[in-house]
């Protein structure tokens, strides 16, 4: 169906939720589009820009784009926040929406992988550098959780006691 039925109930619920999750600027957005014009997402092929995300939430379409991976591609460069004439802080709205997605387990594969890595290895992103390290005379593993089981255990305990554990990834 290409017709959207807009009701005030949905609108209010959506805006209240995004504010509760940290996106208080949403009420100030006038849809000028400055954020979208500088967002690197468009250049990398992601379809959902911050202006459209804000509009969908403003009109109550809170759940429509929950499976869209675009929000996870935001690199927090903050250019949107810099150019926004209404102090909306669009990047914070993207983060707020991410929190909602995470709570609904609508997490992109890349984000799931990095969280699992964090639990298993103590690093969200890492590369296999043992050979390179040995070549320059360093031990194969860096002096972090990778070579310190006690430290890794501590990280895991922290994660198990954090809201992250509720996602059931580990």
């Amino acid at each position: 169906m290409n017709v959207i039925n807009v009701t005030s109930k949905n609108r209010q619920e959506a805006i209240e939720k995004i504010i509760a999750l940290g996106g208080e600027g949403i009420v100030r957005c006038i849809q000028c589009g400055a954020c979208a014009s500088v967002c690197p997402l468009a250049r990398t092929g992601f379809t959902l820009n911050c202006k459209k995300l804000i509009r969908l939430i403003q009109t109550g379409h809170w759940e429509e784009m929950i499976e869209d991976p675009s929000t996870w591609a935001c690199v927090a460069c903050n250019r949107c926040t810099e150019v926004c004439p209404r102090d909306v802080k669009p990047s914070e709205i993207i983060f707020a929406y991410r929190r909602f997605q995470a709570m609904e387990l609508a997490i992109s594969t890349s984000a799931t992988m990095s969280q699992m890595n964090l639990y298993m290895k103590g690093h969200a992103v890492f590369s296999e550098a043992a050979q390179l390290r040995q070549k320059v005379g360093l031990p194969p593993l860096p002096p972090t959780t990778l070579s310190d089981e006690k430290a890794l255990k501590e990280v895991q305990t922290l994660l198990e006691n954090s809201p992250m554990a509720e996602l059931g990834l580990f």
Partner: protein
Amino acid sequence: MVQVSTNPNIQLLTYSEVEEVSGFVGNFQVKVRKKQAWVDWEKCTGCGECTEKCPVKVPNEFNAGLDHRGAVYIQFPQAVPKKAVIDINNCINCAGRKFGTEPRISKRTGKPILAPCERACPAGAINRSLPLSPEGEVLELKVGTIIVATGFKVMEKDWFKEYAPQHPDVITALQLERLMSATGPTGGKILRPSNQKKPKVISFISCVGSRDAKYHTYCSRVCCMYMIKQARIIKEKYPDIEIYMHFMDVRTPGKDYDEYYTAAIEKGITFLRGKPGGIEVLPDGRLRVMGYDANLDKDIEVDADLVVLATAMEVPEDIKQLAQKLSLSLDASGFFKELHPKLKPVETAVEGVFLAGCCQGPKDIPDTVSQAKGAAAAAAVPLAQGKVTIEPTISEVDPQRCSGCGLCVPLCPYHAISLREYQGKLRAKIEFTQCKGCGVCAAACPSKAIILHGFTDEQIEAQVEALTSCW
């Protein structure tokens, strides 16, 4: 302009500023400082010979900094009055001719060595031997009413770092206005300031500093229309120039305005709804406008040769000083505050002082003219009546109770109180024409000798008692 200068009832006091205002409606005393022009305006014919000889080059404010003027200059070719002034802060005193010094005598000719401006003036209006005062002179005027019409200024482009303000081909709309003008630096030809070549693509960006929480939250009200005007005139003159206009919204709420806008679309000017987030300078010196089209929901890029920023209208810095001199208040955006936004749009909290034009808020020429005529009508009312009534809700001293302590004298914000002799003793006296009924004196008087009519202690106490009682 000429109508104004030739009207026998209008006395022009240009190059002058209001120094001090006292009095009240119907009877204001004003001190106006006529700034030192360093040129004898009685003799100056406005021929401009001096301006051509001056070796100094400073940015020409009239052409929005696009070219230069000398230290001695005539503001613009059609200036009224057409008189030269010397900008003494930039004058380099050629030939050591500081004002008020005698010239050196040439050993060769035996004649005095004069500065080029002096030598050039055929009317003898510049004489640097005169010990002119840098303070100018102060005139004292008596007027019944005052209209404040001090206008606005446009924001400079330097504020907007995202729009490559350092690039010469990024200009403000006022600079484009000068490029389009026959009296401007290019004689009316549209040329890129960087290379003096005709641009192929021009981008306009609206709401630069307006409707922006970082600068001014208000809409400047004129930018949409003047941008469309500039685009149309350019398109009519040079149909081959591509014009892209980036708008947050196109606002055309005036008589014949929307028709003016739709005609621009028909002429082939492209309107894009979406605020550009930035400008990138390309290796060839052109400007890439990073925009967004809300109707396509797509990011767009325009590679332009010239970018015009519609920078916001704002109040000049010196508005605060004038507000203080006239006891006027300013609104949250810094403009003069009218008495009531709908019903008293030209009146102020100070009786007899009225507002006209952009000093009250951004507006276009038709609205300004209407408001100016309205302000003139309002300002003429007391003049036509020939008398003003003074509200009786003002303070009065009971000289029998006054102890003459003088406490009230410095407290009065309107300088209405003085100590005068009464039955051989000094007693406070309130000049009823000056008193505004604020009540400061009545509250401060230790002898309870001052009554504020309409707000007596008994009346106020009765009110307080009624408000604090449980009914």
